[in-house]
């Protein structure tokens, strides 16, 4: 089993484009592929892989429910809670499930067993098939702030074998960490603009902090692509593919088409990218 994550600091650099085309090409090459869309706030992979969904699993976290009969209003639950999700005022205990991180501290600390846990739904995980690719994504409920538990649930649904391709959310904070942690390899997608490279720098810092092997794909690159190459040389990271700035790619994307479907001349680019990743994966595992 290998876990490859497609990530980037900046949004809109082409994570989903790279991840979906890579999944498709790996599938065509006979690989057992599981595509996991971990951008649960704005999942888009299904628009390109168009899976037939077969499963829908609600995902939640355990939050406290207080039994007023048993409660002595001692306030220990409120003292241990770091998130102000449970508050004790004289003879009333109030809970704020939206703020609860499900650490279980209040339940554990309650001396009269007055607190039980009930499930609060955050979103759903859906599973399906797109050709021979196993497709899994999470959809966060609207208004929900807590995405990491849902991302963990998406990852838990991934098979224990085959090639897992994870489409990560943008940024550098908790949702991204949850999506990339313990991966075998991280592919960082950037574009050769000041914003793209600035955020690539942050993404490199993130994967290095987690100690994960990584390389860069430059999307919308121009023929000489100097600023991206200089940047990557300076940061000591390899560029393993460059996808040119081709208006036809943008148009295919806008209609929800895979590049390798709409523009078969790019198949070779993705086959090469896939082979590069395979090679880097085997080196990373030996190390």
């Amino acid at each position: 089993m290998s876990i490859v994550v497609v990530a980037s600091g900046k949004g809109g650099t082409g994570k989903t484009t790279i991840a979906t085309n890579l999944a498709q090409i790996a599938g065509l090459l006979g690989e057992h592929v599981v595509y996991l869309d971990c951008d649960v706030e704005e999942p888009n992979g299904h628009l390109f892989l168009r899976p037939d969904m077969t499963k829908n699993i609600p995902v939640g976290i355990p939050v406290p429910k207080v039994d007023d009969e048993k409660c002595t209003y001692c306030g220990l639950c409120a003292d241990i809670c770091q998130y102000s999700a449970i508050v004790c005022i004289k003879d009333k205990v109030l809970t704020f499930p939206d703020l609860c991180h499900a650490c279980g501290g209040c339940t554990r600390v309650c001396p009269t067993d007055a607190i039980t846990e009930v499930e609060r739904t955050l979103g759903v995980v859906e599973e399906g098939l797109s050709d021979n690719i196993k497709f899994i994504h999470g959809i966060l409920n609207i208004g929900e702030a807590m995405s990491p538990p849902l991302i963990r649930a998406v990852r838990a649904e991934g098979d224990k074998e085959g090639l897992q391709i994870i489409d990560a959310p943008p940024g550098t904070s908790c949702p991204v960490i949850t999506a990339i942690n313990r991966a075998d390899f991280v592919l960082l997608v950037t574009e050769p603009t000041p914003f793209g490279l600035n955020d690539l720098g942050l993404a490199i810092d993130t994967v290095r902090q987690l100690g994960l092997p990584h390389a860069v794909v430059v999307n919308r690159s121009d023929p000489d692509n100097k600023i991206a190459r200089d940047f990557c040389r300076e940061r000591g990271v390899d560029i393993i593919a460059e996808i040119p700035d081709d208006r036809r790619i943008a148009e295919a994307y806008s209609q929800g088409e895979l590049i390798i479907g709409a523009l078969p001349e790019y198949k070779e680019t993705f086959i090469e990218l896939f082979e590069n990743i395979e090679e880097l994966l085997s080196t990373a595992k030996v190390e």
Partner: protein
Amino acid sequence: MKEIVVISGKGGTGKTSLVAAFACLADRPVLADCDVDAADLYLVLEPHILRQEDFSGGKQAKIISERCDGCGICMEVCRFDAVKKDIHPDNPGQMKYIIDPIACEGCGVCVYFCPQKAIDFDPPINGKWFISDTRVGPMVHARLGIAEENSGKLVTLVRSEARRIAEENGHPYLLVDGPPGIGCPVIASITGADLVVVVTEPTVSGEHDLDRVHKLSSHFGVPTVVCINKHDINPEVTERIFEESRKNDMPVVGKIRYDNSFTKAQIMKSSVIEYTHGPVVEDVKETWAGILGAL
């Protein structure tokens, strides 16, 4: 004072470039960069930092190994898989426990239940925030540390500082550059704002994400308008977005053509307004007029 928050759902639709452009058109604005994960507005506005503060979002557990007797209760009570166990280097018969700072959610349950009181629980510094001067007005911005949590709290802090500056000095507008997505930092960016401007693009992803971000702003009762960037990339989807927006009481206030002046301006550390006099500037001006009309 009116607070206008620019978000997009989908990343890379042009939020930051447009905020920089609107800043050049607005009457004495204050700026806030609330994309604290990947802040880019400073690359265009080149702020001169006047004040810098540390940010601490929450506490973090740390085992003091000299006091730890290896009972393992911390590992039992942790629900975040943050406690790791290893053979003690000095005493192979004993286990040693450490806390993975990246996995730790700062709940403090291990701290409470440790019988040896061997776990420290202090707030680490997990970011910085700044008050700066720029050529277009005051700006509040921040930098969340790598792999840190609590971006929502930092966003709330940046917004409230920017609001304070705007109100104290009688600035008519506060322009907020928001984060992508619909999660915690986005919620922290839009609650209580006067207007949300969603920058979208005519792609199936843009369309899909616009729908989700609009449901979010409706959920929190914030009036919302739409700006379609790169509208000529796919006129058919642009037309669909117009129709959907009409149905959903979310007016399209402007559409902006695809123009690589945006990228060229970025390279020159300029807004598109400062960079060119081309027709795209008219698109941006009309959009800004539409936003003012919606206020």
